[in-house]
């Protein structure tokens, strides 16, 4: 219950504040530069080229993969102002870099992305197949207006902060199940990936984006599972005689390929959807 004294105090403070604020704000914004915004952040599973179903794609090795389960823990997600060094560049720029490469020997000079313009600073368990290619809205996020040119995210085992939401992951970072088919060969598989510390091995850096962040827009992180399977050789897996799914262990080529590919800069991408007018 609010007391009358508190009401009076608030009214008094507002009165005085209004007078002072009116004087100061007559000059406009404070002039410190930058602009604070709030935008929505979401996740989406990208469709593979020429596909219309999420989780169905053909690898470069000719395997037709159909995922039946795909869950992962991801986050935080950081949107940086600096461009990714892995972003394709103009020929002249690349030539210049070859002739005069940048020095990254000094502390602080290594690519850090510069200032963070937006972020989703929590982990989230994402079911890649749940929304059939539609964006899953995580929530609203604070940010700074401006062009974000790269993003970075973390892949890690679910922490206690996730609570019950994380239980479905059973302590793993990524669950995939499905089947891979090539010609007459069908390989059902189950796979789990872990991304334990150090953080350098959990981070997905240098993801190129072009997002002109502004008030009330929508930034969607797109997961590209079809890129995770690049170079996978399912033919090296031994399918059990009873046809049960192959438990893809870390000793297998498929597991190693996925471990590398999931953390590649092109395993994810991002899209900015400005607010509707």
């Amino acid at each position, binding site marked *: 219950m609010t007391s009358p004294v508190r009401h009076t105090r608030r009214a008094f403070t507002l009165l005085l504040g209004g007078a002072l*604020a009116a004087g*100061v704000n007559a000059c406009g914004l*404070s002039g*410190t530069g930058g602009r*604070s915004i709030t935008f929505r952040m979401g996740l989406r599973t990208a469709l593979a080229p020429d596909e219309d179903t999420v989780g169905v794609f053909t690898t470069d090795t000719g395997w037709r993969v159909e995922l039946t389960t795909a869950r992962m823990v991801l986050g*935080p997600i*950081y949107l940086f102002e600096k461009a990714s060094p892995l972003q394709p560049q103009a020929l002249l720029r690349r030539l210049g870099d070859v002739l005069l490469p940048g020095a990254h020997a000094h502390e602080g000079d290594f690519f850090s992305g510069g200032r*963070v313009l937006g972020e989703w600073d929590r982990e989230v368990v994402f079911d890649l197949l749940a929304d059939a290619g539609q964006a899953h809205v995580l929530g609203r996020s604070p940010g700074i207006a401006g062009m974000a040119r790269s993003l970075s995210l973390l892949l890690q085992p679910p922490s206690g902060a996730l609570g019950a939401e994380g239980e479905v992951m059973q302590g793993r970072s990524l669950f995939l199940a499905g089947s891979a088919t090539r010609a007459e060969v069908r390989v059902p598989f189950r796979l789990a990936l872990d991304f334990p510390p150090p953080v350098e091995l959990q981070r997905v850096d240098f993801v190129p984006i072009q997002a002109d962040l502004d008030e009330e827009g929508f930034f969607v992180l797109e997961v590209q599972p079809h890129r995770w399977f690049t170079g996978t050789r399912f033919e090296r897996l031994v399918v059990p005689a009873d046809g049960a799914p192959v438990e893809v262990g870390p000793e297998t080529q498929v597991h190693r390929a996925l471990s590398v590919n999931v953390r590649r800069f092109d395993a994810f991408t991002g899209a900015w959807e400005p607010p509707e007018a």
Partner: protein
Amino acid sequence: MFIPTLVLWLLSASPEAPVIPPVPVEAAPPVMPAGVPALTQAVRVVLRLTLDTGGEVSRVEVRESGGEAFDRAAMAAATRWRFEPARRGDVPLEVQVDVPVMFEPPAAPVEAPTAAPVVTAPEAPGQAPNESPEAAPVATALADPMPTDAKPPAFSTTVRGRTAAPPPVAVGDFHITVGQLADVPRNSATDLLLLAPGVMLANHGGEGHAETVYLRGFDAGEGKDVEMRLDGVPLNEVSHAHGHGYADTYFIIPELVKSLRVTEGPYDPSQGDFGVAGTVEYQLGLERRGITASASYGSFASRRLSLVWGPPESTDATFVGVLLRQGHGFGPNRAYANAGLMAQTELRLGPETRLRLFGASYGARFSSAGVVRETDVVDARLPCAQDPDSQFFCLYDPNQGGANQRHIASVEWVSRLERGGRFVQLAYAVSRQMRSRENFTGFLQDTPPIGEAQRGDNTEQFYQGTTVGVRGRYTPGLVWAGQPQPVELGYVARYDNVHTRARRLRDKGGAPYATVFDNQVRTTNLGAWLSLRSSPLPWLTLRGGVRVDTFLFAVEDLNRPDEDRQGERIPEESVEAYGFFASPRATAEVRLTPRLTWLTSAGLGARSSDAAGLSDAEFAPYARVTSGETGLGWRWGDAAHGATTVEARGAVFATRVSQDLVFSETTGRNQPIGPSQRLGAFGSVRLLWHERLDVQASLAWARATQPLPGASSWRVWDGTVLPYIPQVLGRVDAAWRGTTTVLQQDVGWSLALGHSAIGPRPLPLDRYSDPIFLFDVGARARWRAVELGVSVENLLDARWRESEFNYVSNFRGPDAPASLLATRHFSAGAPRTVRGTLTVYLDLQEDKP
């Protein structure tokens, strides 16, 4: 060669003419002493006053005693009198005058027992001396002193300095007598700074951590841009681990602060290192003689015990003060306890020489809540109860706080020379130690060994050092073109030997695991100044001077790697640097009317280098400040207007700094950001009414920016606004004293108000903070030797943010994903705090109340 020639030339310029006696200008009557029986006949006291060339009473002796109580009352009044000085031709002279003071019984029967007898002043205000032969002072030039066959004085006193402040060197040069405004509730002597316009104080480190001073658009940090002195003893600490120039004034006992001199801007040649935004000098003195013991208890178990003592036989420059403070603080992890002692003795070594011995000791320990993320407070994610208040005052890391020790000894020798000249020498030694622990970023800065989690960003800052120095000034008793004392020469010599270190502490256990920096620093600062004053026209006074400073830095960097590309090495390295800086300063004073003055000032100042910067060999030796201001000063009130005086000032100013420093959360100290500039204005007024009402009010505006690259230095408006620095500051201090009769007893009372208005502060991302309005009130009542008081600070119980920052932090834990988006952090300001005080005046002396 120039100076001796100038001195000889000035000495030769003294003319001869007849002596004109002094004329009283202000001569308020003495107060009838308390505790004396009702008078049945008049009591006469004859005082011998020494009037200096400015017409101030510089010395008082009792030539004819009327009893100790009457002698003391007469002397107390005489020290406040002012005269037009005696003159020989146009040349003012120092003279002695004998003044009878009469205490007379009432002319009619007294109805009320409290009616006071009539007191006869020596002069009616504005009255010519020869109109009242009884009161006419008899002027005697010092060359022809008064006969000495009179009865020797029962006791005598010497006025400490001048009874009235010297004229300001700029509009922003404030000589602030605390006086009645001591009744306004204040936590510490630091809070007295609020009496100067354009000052805001903030503290992010707890009770015992120096306050951050905002002054004239400067975030002066804990002293990096404001020179602080205590009766000439420098308080800024070079290369302090928390920030270059760190100055902690918590050790000063507020009851012993007689006045402050706040010079805003570098306009006085005597201003030295760190005087970028200005200079603050605390001037000690205890006017109330006898013993005053005070005990307070209040909110959050705050306890305060003070004892100040000034022997009645001595001047206000002799005193002892002890202060003990303890409390739980206004939220978790804010407990504090400290003790301080200050003592000073003034010895008269002759009629014209005084020796002042001063010593102070202080020890403190405090805990600190540090800063919290705004988002965590809003979402109630802090480890406290979920209600908004608990979250607002909550904290992350309980291992924050610190401890202080400080010991000061100083000796000041003051000689009065012929014709009003003075020679002042001060020698001092300061021993200091401080350790503080602050955690601004949680778990972000550490690069842990592979396989380990972040160990935490709690940073321990350690500082231990000794400062010794001398400071002096020489004002020859010269008269040049009718102007007395047109020249002042001064010097400073200061040597610091300090060990300054910062280390990261483990979150668990608090053991240090990494060293941020570790320097042994030795600096020598030698400086001298010459100032001149001249009045080429009756309405024009020019003041100017130059100050020269040299600095020698010797840094032993103890935190170098023990291996480099060539193999093993000793992990230490020495760096030396030498610098020189000359700072010209000048002021033109135009007397538009007898009461209205227009002053225009310009000056250069400097801040010495931080040893931490030198060890990296990155910075030039100095940050230089260029400043100018122009404004008006108006004073109303003299003998013709009774006891009411009003003084008002206003000015506009512009300042440019070559290398500014701002707070860095990663190191917990200030780091360079390049040039900055300020444009601002202020106005202030002080009203004194019959020694009953004292009001001081000020309003200041400042805009601080980082100039655009390549922009002209005249474009002081353009640029990116520096965040956090308040643009509009208002302050009102008011105290009203009186007496009333309760149950046929005289009861003195006092009401006081302090109000701070802090306008919306610019925040990053083009935002403003909320304005802050704080009201502090106090009331006291005194009956005989006992006084009861109550004070309420933050009367409206506002939730306000004392400090605000915007940066990246991670307080979720060593394994939790970090937020990398800069966000607002703040330290909570104190809520409503109520205290009751019992004061006992022993060796009773008349006072109000």
